[in-house]
């Protein structure tokens, strides 16, 4: 399906890549923090979730996609680096103010949904609606791949 569509390039690497990255991040986590204390379960869950997202972003092609870049930047910001990159509101309002003089105001139905999507998809604030759709498609593919990997891992490791 991705190869059939020549307009938008939403190729996603194989499952192995995702699996490799995820396992690597998990092992890194283990080395950093010994998971002995049971009362830090929330902390552990959050760490694993973050590792999942970061590994997904790396597996999906590091900086070739807007959402992956934004994800990685956000992860770095949370840890140590302070990255100020608030492009979001500036770009969106510029578009709206310049075009609002015209009679039709950019299909408000589509724009509302686009706003919600921007909140969900990482890095969605600095994108125009058509670009947002492409990023959403790729993001959905990568997310589903990541979910498959994690599910397999969980099932493989869970007691029978």
């Amino acid at each position, binding site marked *: 399906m991705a190869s059939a569509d020549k307009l938008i390039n939403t190729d996603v690497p194989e499952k192995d890549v995702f699996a490799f990255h995820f396992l690597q991040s*998990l092992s890194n986590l283990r080395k950093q923090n010994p998971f002995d204390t049971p009362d830090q379960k929330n902390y552990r*869950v959050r760490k694993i*979730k973050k590792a999942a997202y970061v590994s997904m972003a790396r597996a999906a092609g590091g900086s070739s996609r807007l959402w992956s870049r934004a994800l990685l930047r956000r992860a770095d910001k949370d840890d140590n680096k302070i990255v100020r990159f608030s492009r979001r509101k500036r770009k969106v309002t510029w578009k709206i103010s310049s075009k609002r003089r015209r009679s039709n105001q*950019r299909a408000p139905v*589509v724009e509302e949904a686009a706003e919600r999507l921007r909140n969900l998809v990482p890095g969605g604030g600095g994108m125009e609606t058509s670009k947002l759709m492409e990023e959403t498609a790729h993001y959905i593919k990568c997310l589903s791949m990541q979910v498959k990997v994690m599910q397999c891992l969980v099932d493989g490791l869970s007691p029978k």
Partner: protein
Amino acid sequence: MLEGLVSQESLSLNSMDMSVLERLKWVQQQQQQLQQVVSHSSNNSPELLQILQFHGSNNDELLESSFSQFQMLGSGFGPNYNMGFGPPHESISRTSSCHMEPVDTMEVLLKTGEETRAIALKNKRKPEVKTREEQKTEKKIKVEAETESSMKGKSNMGNTEASSDTSKETSKGASENQKLDYIHVRARRGQATDRHSLAERARREKISKKMKYLQDIVPGCNKVTGKAGMLDEIINYVQCLQRQVEFLSMKLAVLNPELELAVEDVSVKQFQAYFTNVVASKQSIMVDVPLFPLDQQGSLDLSAINPNQTTSIEAPSGSWETQSQSLYNTSSLGFHY
């Protein structure tokens, strides 16, 4: 005499029963009559003769030239009128008589020209091919006819036809221009033709194309029609996937501390065996809501692992069998918050 002619012909034109050819012939006849009349009445009106010369050449250019000539006439006949004051009466009477007639002839000419233009427009609307020159002349005629206050009824009709046709043609022209660049926008009839709305339309088509692509990816989007419903479904799907990731990470957080996952020792083949769904990954990448078939495949793959290679992976499984009960306890503890 001329006014009587005019009234008769205007009545006959109003009926609109005659065909185009008949009307054109009648117009030509009228022109010839007018020519004879005018040539008889006035000899010293070069502008009028010029007009009559223009007359026979082309109907399209008629009104352009006639209007310019009309203005000249108005200015020309003023001084003539004044000059004819002193000299003999014959000339005065001639010029004065001429003053009225050319105006009438001009009105008549304009009227006939307008009518032919209106008739031509009506007939030309069906074949939708027009040249740029005709577009320009139509626009000019529209402008000139609007300024003429004496011909409101017929000119209004002609105007609306002309404007609608010009808008249609300009839209087609604009769409042709667009085709030459690279945005292929089909401008439909009766829609706005300025650059902004065309760009808007192109943008909307792009977005709808991408939404169709998204519709193929997201399962269950085919049932809902319309942009709003589809977008809601897509947003819902993304939220579902994110929740799934969170849930699975919770599960892993529980399972992980009991296991040793040495990634450096594990080779690529083990990965393929461990996570084998190579076929599935190449097919549709949609996540079905019931994940149970995948679960079974995952567990089956573990059993199919070659015992020589999987030393690190089987070690944890060995520890499971011994510590299965403790695992169950911790897992139950893990999911209690």
